[in-house]
């Protein structure tokens, strides 16, 4: 009889096949509709979130969303400025989760995929809003923060306080660096508890089998007092 494949090895092989497939599916099929949907959603909520800053949200050249702001308080001839709002980065958490889920053995695959996607969609929206907030803060305050430098053309209208500015910077880090790895993993961990249990118990069983295979230590031979 064939020995069942180690669950970790199975996960690794599954991820090697599933992640590229899901990334390709996301890039060529769902990325753009998702980005357009996110652009629409940001457009809807921006009057409430940034009433004095954002005029509108647009989607151009299938690449990035542009945030139009109030005219800068400079001598620029521009009527408004546009700031980039990358939308691919937030949505990449979906194919990462899909790839891991497809790689994980277990029942109810569709349900796991659906629940995970529903859990991650609000995270995607939060990432977009955090990044937009940081772009506005960077533009308004015009001070380099973390790895970002503000655009040359700027408005010194409402500079943020140093603490808030730092917090918006943290929000950007969260959206761009932390959540893209943390969110899919957390969603995966939450939805695959039986698999985790299999891994823990499997490790224990392997150690027990290894211990059982070790030859028993021979008992010490008592010294024969009459041998002298």
């Amino acid at each position, binding site marked *: 009889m064939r020995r069942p494949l180690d669950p*970790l090895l199975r*996960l*690794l092989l599954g*991820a090697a096949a599933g*992640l*590229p497939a899901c*990334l390709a599916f996301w*890039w060529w099929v769902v990325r753009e509709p998702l980005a357009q949907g996110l652009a629409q959603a940001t457009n809807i909520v921006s009057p409430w979130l940034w009433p004095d800053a954002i005029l509108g949200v647009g989607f151009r050249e299938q690449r990035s969303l542009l945030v139009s702001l109030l005219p800068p308080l400079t001598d620029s001839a521009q009527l408004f400025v546009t700031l980039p709002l990358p939308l*691919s*980065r937030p949505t*990449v958490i979906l194919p*990462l989760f899909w*790839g*891991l889920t497809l790689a994980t053995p277990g029942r109810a695959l569709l349900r796991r995929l659906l629940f995970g996607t529903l859990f991650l969609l609000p995270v995607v929206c939060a990432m977009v809003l955090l990044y937009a907030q940081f772009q506005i803060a960077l533009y308004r305050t015009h001070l380099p923060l*973390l*790895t970002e430098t503000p655009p040359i053309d700027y408005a010194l209208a409402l500079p943020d306080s140093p603490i808030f500015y*730092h917090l918006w*910077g*943290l929000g950007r*880090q*969260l959206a*761009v*660096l*932390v959540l*893209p*790895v*943390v969110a*899919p*993993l*957390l969603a*995966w*961990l*939450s939805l695959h*508890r*039986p698999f*985790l*249990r299999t*891994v*823990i*118990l*499997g*490790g*224990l069983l*392997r150690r027990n089998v290894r211990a059982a295979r070790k030859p028993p230590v021979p008992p010490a031979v008592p010294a024969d007092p009459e041998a002298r």
Partner: protein
Amino acid sequence: MRRFLLAFAGIGLLLYGTVYLPPVREWIIAPFTDGLTAAAGGTIALFGGQVWVQGNVLTIPGFSVRILDLCNGVEATLLLWTAMLAFPAPWRYRLWGLLIGVSGVQVLNLARIISLVYLGVWKPAWFHWVHWYVWDALILVDVLLIFLLWLRQLPIKATPHAPAA
């Protein structure tokens, strides 16, 4: 599982919050990033490559990269540490896991940096895609794999709150 998730959120906030404090960034993260750049440069030189390192800038003939946040693998390491610290386990296993974890992530990250700098020469058009998406996926799998391997080594008595099915 709920307890693990709560602990994960709390420890994660603490670790990530600490790392983004300006003094920590200036005195710990920045020198670490410079050291990582030097290590990447040293590895390239070891294999006979021509390389220049200045601070966090790594240059090879035809391409140059600046190692910034994310590129230094700190976020991925913190994620792994958070998961290991949040999971109920004896401290001996945790400390061992933290050490193995940081090595596992940073070794792959070194490979990531070197591969990206050469990709910049070979296929500059692919750089962005591979940098933001392909390597993210690989780091994610790396973190998950190290965590699962660590889970497999845990003594069963140490996991009374192991996630229930």
